[in-house]
């Protein structure tokens, strides 16, 4: 568990969302994807946002990334309103096969962010090698994404996002398309990475157990329109373990408590 100050200075919040809404049309044709969403993310926090499909969680993440704009409300990153995507906000998309450059090798994909930033060739090589090693991708370094399993491809995308040296990593259901076993392996790898590097993560998922397993904080969104129905701190010791943590009474209690909220409209 992390120690938390009771009253936090605004500087510690890396992301602040204030009354963020995504509403189309007016009157009879009015459609709200989500409404009046406010939350903060502290530096070093692992925040999971969980909700069923249609609650606008992906849209919300894209707005934090700067890929989309809310129709009202503000999202601040590092104290500044988010205007566009920047290198210090890394995004990991769910559809790894579309998000990786299919003509580039694993190394080439990881190097992309560094090339764009104008990093010298030698430094790129060292950095890419470190990340390959870190993510267990060394044997696949010269393979193309299509030659890899889904889990490996998603590792490449995570490595690419780490190469950006971001202040925050925004993950949009990154393990949603993976099989259960691979998902658990990657959950633990991500957990370890986040601890080692003191990463700040916003992690979107529709899997409540995954949210509880990974998050310091879990925000539950309900659908139609999307809104925050609950925000809880997950008081579970780290490192969390697939069996023990999931059988922990606190884990089970939180799971029961939140389960009903997700389906509720």
């Amino acid at each position, binding site marked *: 568990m992390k120690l938390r100050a009771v009253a936090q200075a605004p500087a510690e919040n890396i992301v602040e969302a204030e009354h963020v809404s995504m509403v189309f049309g007016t009157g009879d044709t009015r459609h709200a994807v989500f409404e009046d969403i406010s939350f903060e993310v502290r530096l070093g926090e692992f925040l999971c946002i969980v909700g069923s499909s249609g609650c606008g969680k992906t849209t919300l993440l894209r707005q934090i990334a700067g890929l989309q704009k809310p129709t009202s409300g503000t999202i601040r990153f590092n104290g500044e309103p988010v205007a566009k995507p920047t290198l210090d906000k890394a995004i990991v998309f769910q559809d790894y096969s*579309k998000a990786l*450059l299919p*003509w580039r090798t694993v190394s080439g994909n990881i190097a992309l962010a560094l090339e764009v930033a104008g990093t010298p060739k030698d430094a790129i090589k060292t950095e890419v090698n470190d990340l390959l090693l870190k993510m267990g991708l060394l044997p696949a370094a010269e393979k193309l994404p299509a030659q890899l399993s889904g889990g490996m491809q998603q590792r490449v995308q995570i490595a690419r996002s780490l190469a950006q040296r971001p202040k925050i990593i925004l993950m949009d259901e990154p393990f949603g398309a993976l099989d259960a076993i691979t998902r658990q392996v990657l959950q633990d790898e991500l957990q370890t990475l986040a601890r080692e590097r003191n990463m700040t993560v916003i992690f979107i998922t529709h899997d409540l157990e995954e949210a509880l397993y990974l998050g310091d904080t879990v925000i539950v969104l309900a659908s139609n329109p999307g809104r925050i129905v609950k925000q809880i701190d997950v008081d579970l010791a780290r490192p969390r373990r697939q069996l023990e943590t999931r059988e922990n009474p606190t884990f089970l209690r939180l799971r029961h408590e939140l389960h009903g909220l997700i389906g509720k409209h």
Partner: protein
Amino acid sequence: MSRSWRAIAIPAALLLSWEIAADTGWIDLEFLSRPSQILIAGITGLTDGTFLFTTWQTLEAALFGLAIALVVGVLVGIVLGLSRFSEMMSRPVVESLRSIPSIAFAPLSLLLFGFGLPMEGMIVAYACTWPILITTTAAVRHIEPRLIEVSQALEMNSFQRVTKIIVPAVMSRVLVGLRTAVGFALVVAVTVEILINPRGLGYGVMIAQQSLKVDVMYAYLVWLALLGIAVNALLRLADRERAA
């Protein structure tokens, strides 16, 4: 083995009956020559260097035109693919220009550039730009939107977006357009030479015909066929290389 035997059976039979028909005087040698003479003419053409020299002239013009077409087609294609507005604005121009047969520009090109490589190359370029431009435009349209988002997320500037994402993403489709263009290039180059430009294989065919060297003319045609087969084989090889 038996397969290749079957493949050459019919051509061999045809050639043999042609030779026999020539021997027996059933056909007029002034127009039709005979396989043995054509073979001799071909060997002569190859050994004295005229075939290779004229082939080089034709290929030179074809490559020159293709290079221009590739640059223009890819650049304009990317612009039109990225901007719906520019594509809409230029569609009538593109549609009307590309329906003009490239050979119709031969007289104009002659006026502008005189005889020689540039006038021929420009006509080849005109013909070859369209397939490349159109496939490039379509390919840019079909780029995975996620990749564009990745380029935004990584704060790429426009130049980096084009070189690191767009060009490699459209490459395989552009090569399909280029394939079509290569076929056009040879046909257009030879046609221009036959029609107006005194150089290359097309001119060789013309001169042979006009000086009543029918066997040389046929030898040129055989040589052109072999050249076409070779170019196609090269393209297939490149395709396989790419697929591997």
